[in-house]
């Protein structure tokens, strides 16, 4: 029974690991062949086997955290413990599960029997029953169409508010792209359709595929990477500039197409430097990348038709342009010829001399005018010359020189007389000084009748009586000679001297 359950579970689980499978097979072989070699082979207890299995399962990292999708076929919450026991099943298989009270309390909504859910949990083997169980961490209800629609609207509103879908951001597609980038699955219908259209149109366009996942959990990131890659400078360097980018895939369910509604993908499309065409699913499928791209194509085939230029159409257009080019040039040449013809019929070409008559008269008239003008100009100039030469004569240096010479003479005379005057005056001053000096001379005084007394030994002039004493020798000097005398008596009396005056 236990074995049966284990096998059932094994078959039902998609994420079985090889090493566990191997050990399991070994184990079943061991059991099946155990009868014949009962004695030689080791024998395990049930507990041993269950423990072995437990250990194997618990060692497996992937089994410690897995999402399992299925329908709840049994849901039971034990009153006393508060833990929930349930069974998860799909068309072919089932697995039991348990959700402990603590985790159960965190659930927003209790799962109901018959509901499609996804269970996040770890796989374990129960010790007592030896049964595989999923130890649930979280249980979420499988989402329905209404849910998708809601998510779509939420993202759309958010990005629209940011202006990601603004019509003024839309660029027009290049009219003749040389290189078309395609972001899609390399195995899908989209790339095949695009290549088919490109070949039909023979326009020598180059298609560069950037392979990407287009559905599943990893698709959004894969798409974003591909968009960024297509926009990268390295790619421009390696394969050349991508002129337009088709992003899309063939038809599918809303879930299949969901990656094209993911915010990161929509943003990447909106931010692409290369103009974008969104081509997701069929005509009826609308995704948010359709809003973000520069152009929405109903299908990948339609996208290719929009983008890939049609060689024949362009050749026809070129032909038309050439015809117009020739015609316009021919017209112009015709026009010029016609003008030439009309011009050549004019009088000036037919009778050029008559045209000259007027000119000749004009020239003559002008000649006369010029002559008289020249005459008056010459006389005026002559008059002016005369005036200037008389002014020049006034400015002759001869006159100036005579003037200067006269002034020099005057200055020289003035200088001479002033020096003579000065000399005479000095001479007179000198004579006066000399006569004064003479008058002051003692000898002049002597001539006027005075005498001078001198000490004969020292020659000193004795001017006072007290300088002498009785018996002393003295010299009395007159103008005409001297007396050597001896002093008889000194009378010190001023009055006597004055009394002796007449």
């Amino acid at each position, binding site marked *: 029974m236990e074995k049966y359950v284990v096998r059932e579970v094994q078959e039902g689980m998609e994420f079985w690991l090889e090493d566990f499978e191997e050990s399991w097979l070994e184990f079943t072989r061991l059991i099946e062949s155990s009868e014949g070699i009962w004695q030689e082979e080791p024998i395990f207890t049930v507990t041993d086997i269950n423990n072995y299995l437990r250990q194997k399962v618990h060692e497996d990292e992937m089994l410690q955290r897995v999402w399992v999708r299925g329908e709840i076929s049994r849901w039971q919450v034990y009153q006393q413990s508060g833990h929930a026991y349930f069974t998860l099943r799909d068309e072919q298989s089932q697995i039991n599960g348990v959700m402990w009270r603590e985790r159960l309390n965190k659930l927003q909504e209790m799962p109901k029997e018959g509901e499609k859910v996804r269970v996040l949990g770890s796989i374990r083997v129960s010790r007592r029953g030896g049964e595989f169980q999923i130890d649930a961490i979280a249980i979420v209800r499988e989402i329905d169409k209404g849910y998708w629609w809601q998510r779509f609207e939420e993202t759309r509103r958010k990005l629209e508010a940011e202006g990601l879908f603004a019509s003024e951001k839309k660029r027009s597609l290049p009219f003749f792209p040389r290189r078309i980038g395609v972001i899609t699955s390399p195995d899908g219908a989209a790339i095949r359709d695009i290549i088919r259209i490109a070949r039909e149109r023979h326009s*020598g366009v180059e298609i560069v595929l950037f392979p990407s996942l287009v559905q599943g959990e990893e698709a959004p990131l894969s798409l974003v990477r591909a968009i960024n890659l297509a926009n990268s400078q390295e790619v421009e360097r390696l394969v050349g500039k991508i002129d337009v980018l088709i992003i899309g895939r063939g038809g599918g369910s809303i879930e299949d197409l969901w990656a094209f509604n993911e915010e990161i993908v929509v943003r990447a499309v909106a931010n692409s430097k290369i103009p974008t065409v969104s081509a997701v699913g069929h005509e009826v499928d609308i995704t948010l990348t359709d809003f973000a791209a520069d152009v929405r194509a109903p299908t990948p085939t339609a996208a290719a038709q929009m983008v890939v230029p049609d060689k024949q159409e362009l050749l026809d257009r070129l032909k038309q342009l050439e015809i117009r080019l020739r015609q316009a040039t021919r017209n112009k040449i015709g026009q010029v010829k016609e003008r030439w013809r009309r011009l050549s019929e004019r009088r000036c070409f037919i009778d050029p001399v008559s045209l000259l008559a007027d000119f000749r008269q004009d020239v003559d008239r002008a000649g006369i005018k010029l002559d008289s003008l020249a005459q008056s100009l010459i006389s005026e100039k002559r008059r002016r010359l005369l005036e200037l030469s008389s002014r020049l004569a006034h400015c002759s240096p001869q006159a100036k020189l005579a003037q200067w010479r006269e002034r020099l003479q005057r200055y020289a005379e003035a200088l001479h007389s002033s020096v003579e005057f000065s000399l005479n005056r000095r001479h007179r001053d000198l004579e006066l000084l000399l006569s004064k000096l003479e008058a002051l001379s003692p000898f002049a005084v002597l001539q006027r009748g005075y005498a001078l007394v001198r000490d004969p030994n020292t020659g000193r002039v004795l001017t006072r009586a007290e300088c002498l004493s009785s018996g002393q020798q003295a010299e009395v000097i007159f103008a005409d000679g001297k007396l050597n005398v001896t002093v008889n008596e000194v009378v010190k009396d001023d009055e006597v001297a004055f009394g002796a005056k007449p």
Partner: protein
Amino acid sequence: MRLPLEQNPEQGETLTFEQAMARLEEIVRLLESGELPLDETIRLYEEGQRLRQFCEQKLNEAEKRIKMVTLADNGTIKVNEFEPGF
């Protein structure tokens, strides 16, 4: 998809098909106005014919192979030929 300088002195070194086509249309429009002098007309006519040849040549270029560009985990970009499975 390059037009040498001497073929198109007005538009710089290189020219795309679109530019050539646009210029050709412009030339036709200018000529059809009939207001240009004769020497300018002749010059534009010659330029127009060169542009037409250039565009035709571009259109007749050989079919290109399809490339596939992938980014490896180590960040290197690989360019391979792509063979669609049909």
